[in-house]
């Protein structure tokens, strides 16, 4: 149907169709399965790379302050630019946008802008004079099929993670706009009312066969395409079916229902900051850290589910300035440093009863990050001072906390329950256990600490409801949060309905759709028979 993508032989095309008739696809999926989605946030706010199967899309959000449009003086604006980079496909040419590029841009525009997903009124600073103009650039990096859906997810992820500088009105006449740099005041996120998710279906063989999330070879064979943009509340934001084979209207309705359940799934993934989202993308390439054991342990510990937005954690972590000791830092070991840190973390998991000790604990954690050598865990067990007046309950929670906070690799868990947990105090490292620690306490940013405190308080609030013990619970969990902020691939899960950080979503719950995908497929079979 399209001019892009690989040129397939007739045999290949026949094979794809024959497989679909048997409800199989050439990459092993079933007709209504979508490919695995991974979202990678970059260190910069508002830049994200999304990969679904082989399709790779990058989205970047930038904002500038300027005069609003004259016909809408109390609103900011959102402009979307879609770029089909020539690196994505040999048939993408520089310059003139092709048909597909224009279509994709329009679908995303309709879903995001025209459905008022992004709140533009909050972007206005001074009516008629100053408003934020948000610019969203979508770059297609690799055409692996189904560019519309992936580009849409990239756009949403980028908008969710973007933070614009906070500004206030001041000056002698009250008409001046002061933009606060990020060091002075925390940047503010955009307000998204809902998340419109695009779901694409491909039709084959005169409309008889359908598949969701087509890959690039399937796109070369398909006869028609339908894109449904729907949000998790069940509102249809856009439907696009431009030409191609005719499809019965009952099929269209069925596709919309399937799209709704898919949208709920993808919305959950986006809101939870997909488990695959790496905080350090380059690390993810070389150290494919498996999050499965960690998730299992978390599942065991918590009866409910707590997810902290991985993006929020990453931003909090970025804020805390680290000053590595250049004399002793060994850059060849930089990467192993990050991995081995997790082994040390386990021992430093703390339970403190008050603010000071908590800070001490955080600085402890910071110091361990700067070390380039990891000592054996036996040494640390001996060195931990037994100065905790620990309650038994607290110690138990601590044991679990430390197990959870650290990585599963090479961890000695039997030593933890035996010894009293570490609770601040003089540094373990100053005795020369590790070289080069003589520089003492690292510099901590007050703002970073505030943000970090907020994150941990947020977790406290949510866990307070579940935890019976007010004494041992919150502080230890807060420190677990402390540990988890610095742990690689931390996935401490917040309660679903409380999200103090990040964009504000509509409070409507994600209702599960009565019709599941399996039912939809079964219904089709019944109808045919």
């Amino acid at each position: 149907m399209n001019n892009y993508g690989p040129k397939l032989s007739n045999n290949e095309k026949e094979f794809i169709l024959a497989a679909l008739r048997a409800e199989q696809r050439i990459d092993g999926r079933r007709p209504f399965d979508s490919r695995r989605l991974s979202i990678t946030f970059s260190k910069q706010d508002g830049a994200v790379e999304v990969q679904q199967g082989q399709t790779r899309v990058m989205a970047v959000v930038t904002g500038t302050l300027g005069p609003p449009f004259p016909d809408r003086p109390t609103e900011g604006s959102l402009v979307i630019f879609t770029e089909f980079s020539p690196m994505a496909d040999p048939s993408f040419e520089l310059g003139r946008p092709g048909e597909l590029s224009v279509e994709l841009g329009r679908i995303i525009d309709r879903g995001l802008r025209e459905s008022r997903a992004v709140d533009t009124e909050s972007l206005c600073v001074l009516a008629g004079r100053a408003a934020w103009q948000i610019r969203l650039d979508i770059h297609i990096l690799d055409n692996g099929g189904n560019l519309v859906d992936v580009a849409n997810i990239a756009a949403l992820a980028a908008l969710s993670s973007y933070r614009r500088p906070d500004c206030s009105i001041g000056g002698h006449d009250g008409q001046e706009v002061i933009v606060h740099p990020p060091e002075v005041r925390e940047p503010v996120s955009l307000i998204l009312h809902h998340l419109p998710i695009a779901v694409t279906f491909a039709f084959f063989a005169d409309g008889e066969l359908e598949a969701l999330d087509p890959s690039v070879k399937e796109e070369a064979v398909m006869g028609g395409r339908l894109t449904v943009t729907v949000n998790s509340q069940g509102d249809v934001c856009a439907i696009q079916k431009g030409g191609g084979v005719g499809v019965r209207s009952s099929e269209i309705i069925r596709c919309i229902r399937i799209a709704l359940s898919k949208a709920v799934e993808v919305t959950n993934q986006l809101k939870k900051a997909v488990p695959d989202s790496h905080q350090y993308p380059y690390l993810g390439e070389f150290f494919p850290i498996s999050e499965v054991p960690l998730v299992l342990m978390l599942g065991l510990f918590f009866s409910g589910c707590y997810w902290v937005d991985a993006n929020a954690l990453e931003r909090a972590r970025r804020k805390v300035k680290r000053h590595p000791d250049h004399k002793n830092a060994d850059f060849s070991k930089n990467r192993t440093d990050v991995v081995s840190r997790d082994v040390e973390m386990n021992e430093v998991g703390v339970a403190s009863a008050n603010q000071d000790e908590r800070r001490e604990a955080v600085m402890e954690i910071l110091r361990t990050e700067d070390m380039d050598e990891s000592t054996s865990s036996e040494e640390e067990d001996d060195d931990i001072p037994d100065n905790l007046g620990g309650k038994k309950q607290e110690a138990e929670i601590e044991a679990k906390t430390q197990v959870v906070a650290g990585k599963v690799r090479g961890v000695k868990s039997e030593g933890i329950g035996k010894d009293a947990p570490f609770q601040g105090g003089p540094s373990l490292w100053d005795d020369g256990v590790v070289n080069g620690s003589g520089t003492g306490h690292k510099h901590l940013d007050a703002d970073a600490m505030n943000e970090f405190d907020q994150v941990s308080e947020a977790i406290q609030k949510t866990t307070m409801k579940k935890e019976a013990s007010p004494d041992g619970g919150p502080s230890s969990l807060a420190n677990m949060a402390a540990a988890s902020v610095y742990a690689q691939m931390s996935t401490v899960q917040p309660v679903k309905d409380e999200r103090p950080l990040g964009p504000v979503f509509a409070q409507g719950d994600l209702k599960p759709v009565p019709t599941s995908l399996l039912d939809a497929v079964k219904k089709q079979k019944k109808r045919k028979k």
Partner: protein
Amino acid sequence: MANSLKPDEARIDGRTANQLRPLLCTRGLLERAHGSARWQQENTIVMAAVYGPKNVSGKRENSERATVEIIWKMKSGLPGNAEKEAEVIIRRTLDYIVLSAMHPNTGISIIFQAPALCAVAVSCAVTTNGVVVLDPTKAEEKNFRAHVCLVFPNRPKSTVAGLPPPVAGEPAEHGIITCLTRGAMSVNMSSILDKKLLF
């Protein structure tokens, strides 16, 4: 802002004057491209994809060698002069490196995407008191008196059999393919630079 640095003093991110940022290279990221790679030096990330040799028509067709085409994409905004300049410099550098005479009548396209800030090859900057500092970050580049970007040929043993003969007494890898400078520095400085960078 440390405009003057003692030779042993640490820079803002903790490196000494002679230390590079950690390097990371990933190849084969993209499926559709014939070749692709991503190069990272901490916060500086550049992604590149290659298509070719492929059909090229009309004026661009050269019957003796392949036509190398460079496309540079910034993450946001329309391409401006800085991007055009980068394209020209890279094209001239790669013209020397790529064995284009082996593929006449074809075109090779190389597309760069810079999601973050950018730096090319081995670069170094000169502070006000004449200290040469390697691999500056973007913030450092703004504040230093001058910065230089040099491209050296690699030892050609890896691609072509046999070493080329030394040119005027120096081995071939001491030659400079491309040199790009911004700012002012004295003539002595440039010779010190040369010696410093030969590693």
